[in-house]
C-alpha cells in the first residue's frame, strides 16, 4: 500500500503491483464500498499524500514557489518527493535535500552555458531552508546585549548570528516577498546578509562584503581587536582610518543586536 501511496505514477523503479497478491487485483486487498471502487478508495490516499507534502514544501519554500511559479515549483517538488521520500517524523526536515536536488537536476545540467536564473533559485532554496533551521535552532537565549558604552573587548556575537554570501540579491528578494510584494527574478549581483535571532525572533539585515568579512572573523572566534587587526591587514588600510569606519559599524550593529557582552 505504501508504494502505491508514495509513488502512484511510478517515478521510482519499484513496481507497487508486486506487493499485491495478484498483480491485477487491488480488489483482493481493499474493499469497495456502495459508492466507490477499491481503486477510488485508494485514490483518496494517493491524492492526499502528494497534496499534503506539496503543501508543506510550498510553505517551506514560499519565496521559491513565487520565483518559479506554482506549476514549475510543483513539478520540481513532486519529482523531489518521489526521489527522496520523507524518512523523518519532523516535517521541518522535508525540504532538507531540496536545494541539493535542484542543483543535481538543474534543467541546464547538460548545457555548457549555465543559466543565471537557475543559480538564483538554488541560492534562494538554500536560504529559505536555512532560515527555517535558524528559527528552530537550540541556542542560549539568556545573555546581556551590548550597549553603546560596553567595553569593546567584551563584545561577542550573539549566539545566533548567521552570515550569508550570495551571487544574487537573495535577501532582498526574500524579504520583499515576505512583505507581500511580488518581486521579479533578479539579475546577478553579489550580496551579503546577516540573520540574527533575539528573544526567538529572526531579523535579517543586508551587509556589504567588508562587513561580512569582519563579522566572519568574529564568527571564527576572534576578539574585536584581533578581528580589526586581521581586517586592516587583509584590506591593507590604515588602522586609524579603519577606526572611524569601525565606530559607525559598531553603533549600527549594537542597535541591530549583533553583539552581546556575556
Amino acid at each position, binding site marked *: 500500500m505504501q508504494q502505491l501511496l508514495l509513488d502512484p505514477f511510478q517515478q521510482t523503479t519499484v513496481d507497487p503491483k508486486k506487493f499485491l497478491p495478484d498483480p491485477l487485483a487491488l480488489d483482493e486487498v481493499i474493499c469497495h464500498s456502495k459508492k466507490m471502487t477499491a481503486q477510488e*478508495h485508494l485514490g483518496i490516499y494517493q491524492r*492526499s499524500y502528494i497534496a499534503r507534502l506539496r503543501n508543506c514544501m510550498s510553505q*517551506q519554500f514560499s519565496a521559491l514557489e513565487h520565483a518559479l511559479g506554482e506549476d514549475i515549483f510543483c513539478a520540481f517538488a513532486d519529482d523531489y518527493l518521489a526521489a527522496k521520500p520523507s524518512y523523518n517524523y*519532523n*516535517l521541518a526536515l522535508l525540504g532538507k535535500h531540496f536545494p541539493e536536488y535542484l542543483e543535481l537536476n538543474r534543467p541546464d545540467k547538460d548545457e555548457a552555458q549555465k543559466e543565471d536564473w537557475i543559480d538564483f533559485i538554488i541560492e534562494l532554496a538554500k536560504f529559505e531552508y536555512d532560515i527555517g533551521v535558524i528559527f528552530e535552532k537550540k541556542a542560549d537565549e539568556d545573555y546581556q546585549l551590548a550597549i553603546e558604552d560596553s567595553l569593546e573587548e567584551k563584545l561577542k556575537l550573539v549566539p545566533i548570528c548567521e552570515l550569508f554570501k550570495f551571487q544574487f540579491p537573495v535577501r532582498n528578494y526574500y524579504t520583499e516577498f515576505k512583505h507581500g510584494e511580488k518581486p521579479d527574478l533578479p539579475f546577478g549581483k553579489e550580496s551579503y546578509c546577516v540573520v540574527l535571532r533575539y528573544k526567538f*525572533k529572526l531579523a535579517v539585515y543586508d551587509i556589504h562584503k567588508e562587513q561580512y568579512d569582519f563579522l566572519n572573523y568574529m564568527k571564527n572566534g576572534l576578539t574585536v581587536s584581533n578581528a580589526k587587526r586581521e581586517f586592516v591587514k587583509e584590506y591593507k588600510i590604515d588602522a586609524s582610518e579603519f577606526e572611524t569606519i569601525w565606530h559607525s559599524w559598531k553603533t549600527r550593529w549594537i542597535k541591530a543586536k549583533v553583539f552581546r557582552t556575556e
Partner: protein
Amino acid sequence: MNNRLGLPNLRLGLGLRSQHFDYILEHTPAVDWFEIISENFMDSYGRPRHILNQIAERYPVVMHGVSMSIGSTDPLNFEYLKSLKALAEEVKPAWISDHLCWTGVMTTNSHDLLPLPLNDESLIHVCERINRVQDYLKRPLIIENPSTYAAFKNSTIPEWEFLKMMTEKTSCGLLLDVNNVFVSAFNNDFDPIEYIKGIPHDKIVQMHLAGHQNCGNYIIDTHDREVTNQVWKLFQLTYQLANEASILLEWDGNIPEFSVYHSELLKSKKYMDPSFNGFENDIINKDQKEQVSNPLNLMSLELDT
C-alpha cells in the same frame, strides 16, 4: 461516573495553533485547556517551544501525536519516543495521545494516518506495541480512532470492537474522534451509531470534534471549517454515554481568528443537553476542490525585517 484511568476531565479545549500564540499570551482567553501537535515542538528550540512553555504554565496541556506509527511493522522508533518523552517532561501534559494507524514502513514516513487491517493478528501486534510504549513513557497512552478512506479485505473485527479489545488488553485510554467516526462510517458503509454504542465508554478520556468536507461519494476529514450538524448530533449521543470525557475542537486549515474558533467550541455546551434540537443552518460545502486531510504538523515562522 469515575474519571477515566484516573485522568481529569479538562472540560473544553482547543488545539494550540501558532496563528493564535500572540492572542493567547496577551488575552489569556477563558479556554479550559490546549492540545498541541507533539511533533511541532519535539525538535523545536525556537519561538514555538518558548511560547508553549509559557502557555503550559497557564493552562493544562495535552500532547497529541501524529507519528508514533503504532500499527507499523517497522520497529518502534525509540529516537522519536525519546524526544516525545523529553517534551513531556518539560511540558507536563495531562496525557499523551496518538492514532490507531501506521504512517510508514521501511523507515519511510508518509505523514498520513494510514488505516490498519483490523483482525486478530493486528490486534496482538498493536497491543504489544502499546504496552512497550506505555512502559517506556511510564504513563497510559490514549489512542484515537483515525478517519479512514479505505478498509481492508482481511479485516475481521469492526473498529469499535477492536478498540474495546485493545483497551482491555493494554489498559490504554481512548480518544474518540466523533467526526472521524462519521467520516469513516460514510466512507466505509458502517453505522456510526452502532460504533458509538459499541465502544467502551468508560475508557474514553477525550473526544475530538472537527469540520469535514463532503465530496459527494466520500468525505475528507479536513479540520478546516465548522462542525456539521450531523457530527454535532453524533456528539450529542456520545456525550450522553461518556460525559466525563474532555472535549477538544480541532481546526488545522483555513484557521480563523481565535474568537471564531472558540465560539465554535462553545456550541458543544448546547449539544451536551440531550433535548437540544440543534442549530437550523448546516455547513454548506461551497468549494469544489478536494482539500487535504489533517492534521498536518508544520509550523509557520515569523520574521522581523
